[in-house]
């Protein structure tokens, strides 16, 4: 049931990014939510990767921004979980790796930092859906 909500919120995030860029500093909402979904549950890559593709096309007119790294995340996550056992360190590392291309493609450091924060919060709420935000 998470997929439709995350995808809908990501679309809304893309619209916010386009409509309000230049007015306020905002994170990359869609990338943060999609990456959080993948980190929360490995199987979510099935719908998160097409989401990343749409994200790259809408915001950067290219398929090769976040998607190439995002494609590798489920693979590396599975390998790391197999070797080290399911855990946080590899996920945190992959979160940084997944959002790193944004810095390369012209996003400011403050936007990147905000994206990282949104991703962490979204990840927490996807893992614990029963927790209500304060």
């Amino acid at each position, binding site marked *: 049931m998470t997929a439709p909500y995350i995808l809908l919120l990501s679309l809304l995030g893309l619209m916010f990014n386009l409509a309000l860029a230049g007015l306020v500093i905002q994170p990359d909402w869609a990338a943060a939510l999609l990456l959080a979904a993948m980190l929360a549950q490995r199987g979510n890559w099935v719908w998160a990767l097409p989401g990343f593709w749409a994200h790259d096309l809408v915001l950067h007119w290219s398929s090769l921004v976040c998607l190439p790294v995002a494609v590798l995340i489920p693979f590396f996550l599975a390998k790391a979980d197999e070797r080290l056992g399911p855990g946080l360190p590899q996920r945190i590392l992959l979160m940084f790796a997944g959002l790193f291309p944004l810095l390369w*493609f012209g996003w400011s450091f403050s936007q990147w930092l905000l994206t990282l924060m949104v991703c962490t919060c979204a990840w927490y709420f996807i893992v614990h859906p029963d927790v209500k935000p304060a």
Partner: protein
Amino acid sequence: MPQRRSPLRILSWLGLLLVLLVSIQQLPVGQQLNLGMAPLLTALQAPGRWWQEASLWLHERSQLQTDYQQATARLEKQSVLTQEVRSLREENRQLRALLDIQQITGYHWHAAKVQGRSPDKMSRRLILLVQNAAPDDVIVSSDGLVGLVDHSKPGSAVVRTILDAAIAVPVTMPDRVLAVLVRGQGDRLMVDFVPIENAPKPGSILQTSGAGGIFPAGIPVARITKVEPIPGQVFAKVDAEPVAHWQRESWLAIASATERSAQ
């Protein structure tokens, strides 16, 4: 026992995906998606517009009267200036005819509202709310050249700014024999083919030369920031920044070639 997938198979799938992505890269999918999202952006910005209209509606009457008087005074000054501009334009036309200089004609100018922009810090791409824009129409701000219309549909257009690597602008300097190209590098501009002995100084402004027929001549494009001679090479490494600032502009001008418009 879960079946293990061979690394070769995974690599071949990844390779296939990469080929697919690179081939899709050539198609204007992102541009079409941006054009398709234009009505959604209008809807998203609606509360802001309503707020603006409501605050205008609730503006105090006395303030409105003062504004009206100021506007009337400004209009009078404006009409005097308009008259002056007309006579200067006529004088300019006659002088250009005498000196045999080409007029910047053949372009139809109109205004466009900025509806959205890419969220990178330099806003490399813009979405404009505009009627009758066509690909390759030139976008200009009050300071200088902004970019080119990439794709359009009735009511909106997507723009690549000069920071985009896909655009090269032929430029010159008014008082020099210099014909160079300005190319986007993402967050800055690079000036190609600048001979070392003829390199402009940092701070110089480059303007469109009109070569190629896409950009009207005489529009400021770039300010030189760094000139670095490379030993053993004919051309200097020249960095520049755009003269125009479109990151916060709400309105921009579009120059459509009249020949293209007629077609």
